C-alpha cells in the first residue's frame, strides 16, 4: 500500500482543519503554563497555508514544504522555525518520490525529528512536542522494518502520538516559556506536544483516506 505523493491535498487540508478546530483548545492548554497563544500561532500558520492552497492540488511533499515555508516566513515565534523545520525537512527527504511507502514515510518523519534536533536542545522527557514526535518516529521505523501494513501502522502512530502527548502531563518543562515554572509545570499537558499530536493524527487520517 502506498500514498501517491500527488494526492497531498486531502492530507494537508485535514491537518489544516484539525488545527483550526483546536485553536481554542490549544490556546487554553498553553494558557495554563505558557502564554496562551499557541492555538492562535498554529491556527494562523495552518489557515494561511490553507488559503494559499485554495482550490489547487498539491503533492504531499510540496504541501508540507509550502506549509513549512508559511510557518517559517510568516509565523515566527518558536513555532515557525520548529514546525517549519519539521515539515520542510520531511518534504526534503522525499520530494523525489512518486509513491510514499511506509518506509519512505518513516524516513520523512525521522528527517523531521532530525531537523528539529538541529535547532532545539529539547530531547524526550523535556515536556515539548519532541515527546509526541519521537515515539511516532520510533514506531514507524519499527513498523517499516517489520514490513507492517501501512494503514495499521498509521493507526499505531496515532496511538503513539496520543500516548506521547499524554506522557508530557507528568513531566517538568525544561524548555520554552513553561520551563521557568519548574515543578509548577507538572500536571498539565504540554501545548506543543498536544498540537503535534493533533497534527500527526490528522496527517495519518488524511493519508489513510488516500491509501491505495
Amino acid at each position, binding site marked *: 500500500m502506498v500514498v501517491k505523493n500527488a494526492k497531498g491535498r486531502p492530507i494537508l487540508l485535514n491537518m489544516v482543519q484539525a488545527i483550526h478546530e483546536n485553536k481554542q483548545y490549544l490556546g487554553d492548554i498553553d494558557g495554563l503554563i505558557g502564554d496562551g497563544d499557541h492555538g492562535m500561532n498554529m491556527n494562523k500558520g495552518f489557515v494561511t497555508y490553507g488559503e494559499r492552497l485554495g482550490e489547487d492540488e498539491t503533492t504531499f511533499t510540496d504541501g508540507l514544504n509550502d506549509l513549512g515555508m508559511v510557518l517559517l516566513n510568516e509565523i515566527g515565534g*518558536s513555532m515557525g*522555525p520548529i514546525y517549519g523545520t519539521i515539515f520542510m525537512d520531511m518534504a526534503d527527504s522525499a520530494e523525489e518520490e512518486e509513491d510514499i511507502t511506509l518506509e519512505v514515510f518513516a524516513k520523512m518523519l525521522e528527517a523531521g525529528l532530525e531537523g528539529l534536533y538541529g535547532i532545539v536542545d529539547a530531547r524526550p522527557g523535556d515536556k515539548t512536542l519532541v515527546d509526541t514526535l519521537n515515539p511516532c518516529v520510533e514506531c514507524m521505523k519499527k513498523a517499516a522494518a517489520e514490513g507492517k501494513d501501512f494503514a495499521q501502522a498509521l493507526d499505531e502512530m496515532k496511538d503513539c502520538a496520543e500516548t506521547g502527548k499524554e506522557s508530557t502531563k507528568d513531566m517538568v518543562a525544561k524548555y520554552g516559556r513553561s520551563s*521557568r515554572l519548574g515543578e509548577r509545570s507538572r500536571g498539565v499537558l504540554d501545548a506543543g506536544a498536544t498540537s503535534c499530536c493533533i497534527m500527526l493524527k490528522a496527517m495519518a487520517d488524511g493519508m489513510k483516506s488516500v491509501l491505495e
Partner: protein
Amino acid sequence: MQRILNNPDNIVDEMLEGFVKTHGDIVKKTSHPRVLAAVNAPVEGKVGVVTGGGSGHKPAFIGYVGKNMCDSAAVGEICSSPTAAAFLDAFKAADGGKGVACLYGNYSGDNMNVKMAVKMAKKEGLTVKTVVANDDVASAPKDQREKRRGVAGEILMWKCGGAKASLGGDLDEVIAAAQKAIDSTRSVGIGLTPCTLPAVGHPNFEIKDGTMEVGIGHHGEPGIEVCELETADKMAKRMTDIVLPDYPFESGDEVVVLVSGLGATPVMELYVLYNEIEKLIVEKGIRIHKAYVGNYFTSLDMMGATLTVMKLDDELKELIDLDCNTMGLTQV
C-alpha cells in the same frame, strides 16, 4: 479588558502603520511588512546594526531604530519572535556593504529565527554576526549565563553597538563593543501586576494584590520569588542587591543606570524608585555617569519596573554619550 484595539489579530500591523505615520522623519517601511528601517538606511560603508523581537515592549524594538542606534528592526507578533524571513530582510535593509551586526535578546524563538536568517544571509553572500543579550540576572544562575534572558540592557547594547558603527567601527569592532556592553550590564525586574495579551483578553498569570514578583520576565516569565509588596526604598534595595553583586559592580566603578517602567506604572513612581536606587549605588562608592528613567522597555500593561546597571570604560562612555535620535531615545 479596557484596551484600545480593533481586531486584536491586526494590532501589530496597525501599530506599525501608526508608527511610520508618526515617525516618518526617523523610520521608513521596507519591502517586508514586518521590517522597519532608519530613513537613511542602508548607509554605504557603515556596518548595519539590526535588532528585532516580539511586539508589546514599546519603545523596543522599532523605537530604537534611528540615528546612531539601529538601522533596522524585525517585528514579531505580540510576545513572539519575528520570522527568519523578517530578520533576513532586516539584514538586507541595513546592509551598507560592511556586514551586519544583529543584536538581539536571548529567547529561544529569536535564537532559532536569527540562526536561520543568518544561514540564509550567508547563502546570499551577506555576513551577519550576532550578539545575544542576557542581562537578566534573575533568569538563571551566574554559572549558566548563556541561559539568561535579555531585557532592558539591550537598549544599552544597541546604543553602544549603534554608536560604534556610526563612528566607523568595522563589523568585528561593532560586535565587540556590543558584546562588551552587554557583558558589562545586569538587570532585574519586579512585576506588580500581570499583563494581558490583547488577543487573549485576560492575564495568563497572576500577581496577587499586595504581593510582587521579583525577577519577573518581560513576558510574565515567573521570577525567583514572590513576596509582599514593599515600599520603594526596600524594592530599590532588593533590586540593587540582586544586580550589583552579580557583575560585580564595585566602589570606584562608573556606571549607567536605566530604570524602566513595565508599561502601566506611572512614570512619577519610577523617579521615586530611582531616587532610592541612586542613594544605594552612590553609597557603595559607585559613580553614576548617566541615568535613564522612563518607559524604555515595557510589557504591555504590566505594572512594575526594571533596573539595569552597566559598567563603563572609556570606550563605552564615549558610545553612550554619542547623540542619537529614535522614538525611544533622543539624546542631543
